């Protein structure tokens, strides 16, 4: 239904025969990286690796971009990543920018929140954008990169793991062929067939409550905010969500009871009266209707031999909190630079283990947060419902009650406890500690620290604050200087403030923009030791 409504984006692609298919089964073509699944995660990872100079084969079993708007909320962090991949502006130009959410109980507003209440960031807290637009823009970018070989209607049907490689059997409209890969990255979604092929469990908590998503097209006066209701007058006893997308499309999410008949509930003639009650009119058309239950679960290990899992194939969360696609994109940015270093022999294969450590930690955090939100929306027992009722009642007159109301805690980057970080040796009163994501700030009028970080490719970067002496950065480390004669400016003072940095201080940033180490008075030896640790060299 949806792709028909996307006039500015190509969504249908053709199968093309590749010379690899002409090789005999006993001597398959060899490739360093094969990515399986051309969703937002696989597409982004392919671009990132290609920009680092890697050749990538990207396989997808379909020949078109998936139907329905699906993931719609993309976080600041994801936008900063997409900036590095060359698609950030396009996403933001098309997307609907928002940062304010409101929570209602019945007809009354309990409170509102602003996810980015301060100025001085290049990107907003969130944009809403239909997933099919995001995928279409990523495919357009891929077409500019000769390193990527995107093959539609190529379905992986078998996997053979060897000591130092994997062999895939791939089904196409013209028959099967085989590919030999040093690494296979499985970005093939929640129903991952690669996950089944490695025989990994995917256990977790199943939620019985059902939710109905309806994307409706209408012209409406609602502000561009996330509105969430507990027990709204138009949908008694349950929860509802209203959120704007581009093209006058609105996402409506209604909680149904756990015994609702999915076939009946999905019929437009049954959905229409519910939505009409919510909106107070029926001047809308359906774009997409979907009924879903969800699970919160993750794989035990994200790495199985030469197959590495990223995105929904590795972990699944409830949708309340925008932690699905955004965490998948964080997987991609975490994995890309590590895989690139390993393939170049610059770091040992052990560096990849830190991908599992860091991203499984993030998955646990996302699962914890989204499970708490879901339990709050759909209490599991009479007593849980009673406690929720008490919180909602207290929220009307107390600050602490408002803060306990959980209508979704929205995605923010995880802080890693990781062997790649060097612990602080100096005293810091603020700023991102090692294992945290870098913070943005203006370095000139309409120029930002995240721009400076991405310029010239993202590698290890020393962000230093001038004291008149240039810090001694080890070879292969990019430098960004704030202040001094040749340095960038800090017109609002926000860079120094957000990094709690005095003259001479320095931060060592990883290629994914995470802090590896920081120093009040850096020495060449200390920086080199931190670099070596962050690169998995000791």
């Amino acid at each position, binding site marked *: 239904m949806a792709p028909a409504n996307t006039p500015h984006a190509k969504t249908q692609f053709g199968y093309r025969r590749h010379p690899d298919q002409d090789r005999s089964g006993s001597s398959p073509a060899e490739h360093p990286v094969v990515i399986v699944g051309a969703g937002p995660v696989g597409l982004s990872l392919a671009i990132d690796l290609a920009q680092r100079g890697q050749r990538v084969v990207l396989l997808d079993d379909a020949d078109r971009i998936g139907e329905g708007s699906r993931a719609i909320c993309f976080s600041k962090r994801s936008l900063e990543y997409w900036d590095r991949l060359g698609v950030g502006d396009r996403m933001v130009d098309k997307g609907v920018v928002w940062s304010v959410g409101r929570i209602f109980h019945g007809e009354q507003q309990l409170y509102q929140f602003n996810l980015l209440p301060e100025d001085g960031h290049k990107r907003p807290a969130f944009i809403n954008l239909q997933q099919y637009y995001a995928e279409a823009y990523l495919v357009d970018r891929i077409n500019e990169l000769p390193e990527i070989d995107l093959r539609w209607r190529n379905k992986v049907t078998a996997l053979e793991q060897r000591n130092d490689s994997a062999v895939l059997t791939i089904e196409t409209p013209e028959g099967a062929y085989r590919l030999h890969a040093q690494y296979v990255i499985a970005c093939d979604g929640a129903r991952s067939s690669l996950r089944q092929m490695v025989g990994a469990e995917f256990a977790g908590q199943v939620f019985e409550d059902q939710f109905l998503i309806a994307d409706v097209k209408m012209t409406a006066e609602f502000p561009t905010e996330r509105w969430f209701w507990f027990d709204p007058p138009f949908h008694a006893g349950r929860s509802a969500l209203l959120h704007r997308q581009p093209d006058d499309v609105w996402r409506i999410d209604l909680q149904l009871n756990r015994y609702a008949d999915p076939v009946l509930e999905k019929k437009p003639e049954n959905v229409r009266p519910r939505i009409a009650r919510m909106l107070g009119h029926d001047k809308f058309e359906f774009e997409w209707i979907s009924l879903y239950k969800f699970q919160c679960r993750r794989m035990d290990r994200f790495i199985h031999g030469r197959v590495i899992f990223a995105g929904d194939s590795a972990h699944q969360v409830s949708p309340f909190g925008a932690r699905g696609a955004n965490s998948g994109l964080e997987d991609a940015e975490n994995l890309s630079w590590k895989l690139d270093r390993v393939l170049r022999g610059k770091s040992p294969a052990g560096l990849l283990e830190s991908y599992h450590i860091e991203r499984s930690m993030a998955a646990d955090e996302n699962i914890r947060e989204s499970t708490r939100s879901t339990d709050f929306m759909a209490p599991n027992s009479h*007593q849980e419902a*009673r*406690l929720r*009722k008490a919180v909602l009642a*207290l929220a009307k007159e107390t600050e602490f*009650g408002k803060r*306990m109301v959980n209508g979704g805690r929205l995605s923010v980057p995880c802080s890693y406890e990781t062997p790649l970080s060097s612990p602080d040796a100096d005293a810091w009163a603020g700023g991102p500690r090692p294992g945290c994501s870098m913070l943005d700030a203006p370095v000139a009028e309409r120029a930002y620290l995240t721009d400076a970080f991405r310029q010239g490719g993202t590698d290890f970067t020393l962000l230093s604050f001038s004291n008149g002496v240039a810090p001694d950065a080890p070879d292969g480390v990019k430098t960004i200087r704030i202040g001094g004669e040749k340095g960038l400016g800090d017109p609002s003072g926000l860079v120094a403030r957000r990094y709690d940095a005095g003259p001479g201080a320095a931060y060592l940033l990883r290629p994914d923009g995470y802090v590896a180490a920081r120093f009040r008075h850096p020495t060449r030896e200390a920086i080199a030791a931190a670099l070596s640790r962050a690169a998995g060299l000791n």
Partner: protein
Amino acid sequence: MPLSTSSNFARPDDAFRAIVEAHRGLTEEQSADFDATLVLILANHIGDIDVLREAIGLAKRRMIDGQQQQLQQQ
């Protein structure tokens, strides 16, 4: 700061009485609602997750001990 289990009220009977009286005239359901609300207010006032966890642990232990005593008496 650990959970304080020494007597903190100058007049403990007044405190106990205040809670008892708050429940007077309530149905079982209303009493349970009231307790839930009161627990949340007091938990926030304490504002220390470790103390709260210790308090929850103590309450759980007393419940389990109570059940065991009941079983022994039967």
